[in-house]
């Protein structure tokens, strides 16, 4: 079967990571758009949440799909991580990373800002996973009798949770900083003409997400009433 052969190949597995990552990124975009309604006030957010929950069938399918995507992304990622470790059974005594900026980016005078991001993908991924679990238990499975907007605002107003929220989005920003570039490369979408644009997007987009999502707890903790 060509598809099995494809998925078990190294590039196939990377493709799986890239495609699931891309879809998760799209979900993140829509999710952030939803969260952003909080800036318009709790009422707007509450009505967004209620709108969403009124399409139960759609939501359930969406949730199952999302769960599947996460499972694929995480399990493939862990499997790749395991395989990659196996590829060098005897580690080096000294190992230095030299790709502080890629040659392509260098040619355009752009420094890759976070080589750390590339090297910590499995770890940032796992951090994000643990955050998602906390997040789901806090918000989605929060008290049923309280409006969800109130739960969210209450939780995010607590400095500890607010900080965790901001920290997690920073980690997420790092993860997708490398993720965006990596998925384009894996899908073969690379051309010198767009190198600069892609390099910029991999920084601008995660920071934009971070500002939108991180701004909420920041405002709340600072005492702004939403």
């Amino acid at each position: 079967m060509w598809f099995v052969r494809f998925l078990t190949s190294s590039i196939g597995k990377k493709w799986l990571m890239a495609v699931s990552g891309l879809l998760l990124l799209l979900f993140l975009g829509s999710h952030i758009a939803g969260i952003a309604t909080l800036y318009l006030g709790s009422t707007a957010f509450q009505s967004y949440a209620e709108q969403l929950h009124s399409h139960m069938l759609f939501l359930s399918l969406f949730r199952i799909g999302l769960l599947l995507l996460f499972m694929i992304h995480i399990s493939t990622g862990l499997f790749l991580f395991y395989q990659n470790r196996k590829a060098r059974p005897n580690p080096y005594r000294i190992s230095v990373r030299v790709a502080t900026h890629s040659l392509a980016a260098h040619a355009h005078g752009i420094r890759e800002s976070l080589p750390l991001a590339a090297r910590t993908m499995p770890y940032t991924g796992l951090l994000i996973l643990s955050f998602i679990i906390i997040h789901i238990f806090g918000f989605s499975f929060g008290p049923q009798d309280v409006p969800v907007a109130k739960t969210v605002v209450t939780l995010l107003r607590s400095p500890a949770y607010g900080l965790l929220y901001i920290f997690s989005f920073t980690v997420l920003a790092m993860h997708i900083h490398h993720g965006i570039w990596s998925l384009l490369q894996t899908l073969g979408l690379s051309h010198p003409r767009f190198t600069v644009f892609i390099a910029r997007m991999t920084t601008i987009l995660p920071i934009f997400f971070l500002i939108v999502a991180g701004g909420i707890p920041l405002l709340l903790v600072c005492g702004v009433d939403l």
Partner: protein
Amino acid sequence: MQTIDLTLQIWRQKNSDAPGDFETYTLKNISTAMSFLEMLDLLNENLTLQGQEPVAFDHDCREGICGMCGAMVNGIAHGPQSETTLCQLHMRHFNSGDTLVIEPFRSRAFPVKRDLVIDRSALDRIIQAGGYISINTGGAPEANTIAIPSPTAELAMDAAACIGCGACVASCPNGAAMLFTGARISQLSLLPQGQPERKERALAMVMAMDKEGFGNCSNERECEAVCPKAISIRHIARMNREYLSASFLGE
């Protein structure tokens, strides 16, 4: 002539089955005009006269084109100078008193044969899987019947400059051979002569690469950074593209 003294920590391993370990040597009066391999020659001359076994290391052309030499020098494949093979690395880039840790290129697919000598035949097997154009001797058309735009030829040449030294694999955190494989697939997919076997080639070469036990690419660009011929990871992207289209749109 300026000279320096160095402390060398070199991986010594009798053969593939024997366990290996680092040995420390001090080497004095190294001319800064020497190449790294000439420095090792000097060490070996001294060791030989002292009745010890010299350090085995691979080398041949000593002008940076054959791809035979290579070792990790303080954690960097081919040492600290970019776009330079070990044989073209000169000792003036080091300071007297430095300690150099010299290790063989490591990967599951590159077993150590002795000291710094490794077996890179896995790379040959990737090429054997399809890294060529199937044309019998004598069956070629007149050369100028195949017109190739100069920029395409130049791009193919960029990829074709690969010397097969294995530094990309050695420096990849995952021990992946994507840059090596990508360069060859990319070169042949760019040229009109490579079109008939284009899909089959991408499938076969990637399969051979996976079979050898190389790791997977995580786009960390270390390969490109150490490549003595500055081969761009664009060629990995092109390989990915070739492989995807061959998988989804092949027969």
